[in-house]
């Protein structure tokens, strides 16, 4: 399952440019103005482009986290492990370590793909150019970690895989939109899914500049802090809950 996820990640990274250019070509053939063909992979834009794309795949990562945690509850191995002398906190920490490693390796894949693709597709490579927008790498890590810890909390709360996936999907795709709708915009951007999404904004392309939309090209510190706070809240809640809860 992990293998499939990482393969998917690589496929998307390496295949997306061809796909986008193909689509643009098709579109420009019927459009009055010719669209410039451009590379998604040139430094320094490659970081934001890839990180943004990879963001769509984080739901798969969350599924892996959910399965990994609910498995312990459906097999009752969490009981056996605690019985054998693991403390409850050690058990939670072991799962925390798992999501940290998972997020970390995903980030490593992003980094290696970005370096490879950037090197191949940038005319004049300088270290300044490479590092210019490299802040998207840690931002991607934070996005994954926040989402994984949210999945982890749901896994610990719901305990059964089917229900947990349902609960996560319900919140991710529906509930948060409803909540966001009833809140003023200034408050809604602090909701977890919203904050994760804002962390890495939609990359500006030449096309978008043409129509006059301008998205953020850097990582905003308040968004990063919001995500970090959510990580702490989600993980903290698990520890707090399992002080008293029956296993």
């Amino acid at each position, binding site marked *: 399952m992990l293998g499939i996820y990482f393969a998917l990640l690589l496929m998307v990274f390496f295949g997306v440019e061809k796909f986008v250019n193909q689509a643009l070509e098709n579109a420009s053939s019927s459009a009055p103005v010719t669209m410039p063909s451009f590379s998604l992979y040139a430094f320094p834009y490659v970081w934001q482009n890839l990180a943004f794309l990879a963001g769509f795949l984080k739901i798969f990562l969350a599924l892996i986290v959910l399965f990994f945690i609910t498995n312990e509850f459906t*097999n*009752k*191995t969490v*009981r*056996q*492990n*605690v*019985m*054998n*002398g*693991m*403390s*409850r906190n*050690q058990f939670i920490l072991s799962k925390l370590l798992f999501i940290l490693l998972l997020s970390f390796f995903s980030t490593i894949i992003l980094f290696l793909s970005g370096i490879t693709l950037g090197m191949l597709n940038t005319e004049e490579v300088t270290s300044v150019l490479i590092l210019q927008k490299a802040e998207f790498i840690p931002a991607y890590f934070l996005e994954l970690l926040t989402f994984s810890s949210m999945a982890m909390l749901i896994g610990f709360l719901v305990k059964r895989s089917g229900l947990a996936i349902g609960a996560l999907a319900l919140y991710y795709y529906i509930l948060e939109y409803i909540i966001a709708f009833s809140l003023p915009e200034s408050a809604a951007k602090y909701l977890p899914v919203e904050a994760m999404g804002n962390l890495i904004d939609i990359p500006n392309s030449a096309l978008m500049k043409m129509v006059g939309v301008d998205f953020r090209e850097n990582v905003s510190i308040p968004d990063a802090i919001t995500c970090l706070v959510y990580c702490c809240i989600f993980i903290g809640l698990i520890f707090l809950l399992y002080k*008293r*809860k*029956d*296993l």
Partner: protein
Amino acid sequence: MSTPVLEINHLSKSYGKLKALDDLSLTINKGEVFGILGPNGSGKTTTLSILLDILKADTGEYLWFGKKPDSHARRRIGALLEQPIFYPYLSAVKNLQIVADIRGASYDEIDEALRTIGLIERKNSKYKTYSLGMKQRLALAASLIGKPEVLILDEPTNGLDPRSIAEIRNLIIDIANKGLTVLLASHLLDEVQKTCSHVVILNKGKSLHSGRVDDVLNSSSKLELKSDNMDALSNAIKQFDFIGDSKLEKDLLVLSLTKEVEAAEVNKILSEQGIYLSHIALKKRSLESYFLELLSEKNV
């Protein structure tokens, strides 16, 4: 006196409206084989789960080895609760390695343990391919890893064939002879009577009786008497101080005894008084009859 292995003080636990455990107090000393006896749903597994930190009690506390319980105390306790639990997609060896890792035990113990329970040939098979008997035996092996001082067994012979049951009982007796303290929950009275030195009888989460198994059996013996002259016999027995209560069952006079007596002694005294018995029998009550009596007394 040394610190008790386990001290339970006023433990209670409810699931919603249902009181699963009601003010239970117990003390278990080193080397005892302590049976927890009760019908299904009497709170046996709930008690053991609380002692292993799987469930949290509503009120009350318990001390392992005289200290507030923590994960280190649990590493000195081997446990087999309800059913064997392992990662189904891992082999026996891998599963036992996890146990050894948690308990800080050496991997060398694993092969030894697998040999003892006769699973060494299948040690690399996945757990999910095991039969119920093999799973149960593997769980017993797992509970012995890390050389625990206390063994907690919840229905250890559940679902086993008669030969495996006998094997496991012998293993429990062997373990107890090595000085380990054993806590055995069961609804099989015969099992408790055969293996335990002490017993607590639970019903609906309440302790109905607790003490030595021998005491239970002796204090609850009965004496059956029959004579041609039943009236004289009824009068004559009033002189004895060891009789709790007497009643006529068909043509037998059944006396419950408050202390141990010898049948020959009773016969001798009565015959000296000219009462000749046509039947005398000393019946040691089994744990089973005592158990059923206790349950019926409490109107359940």
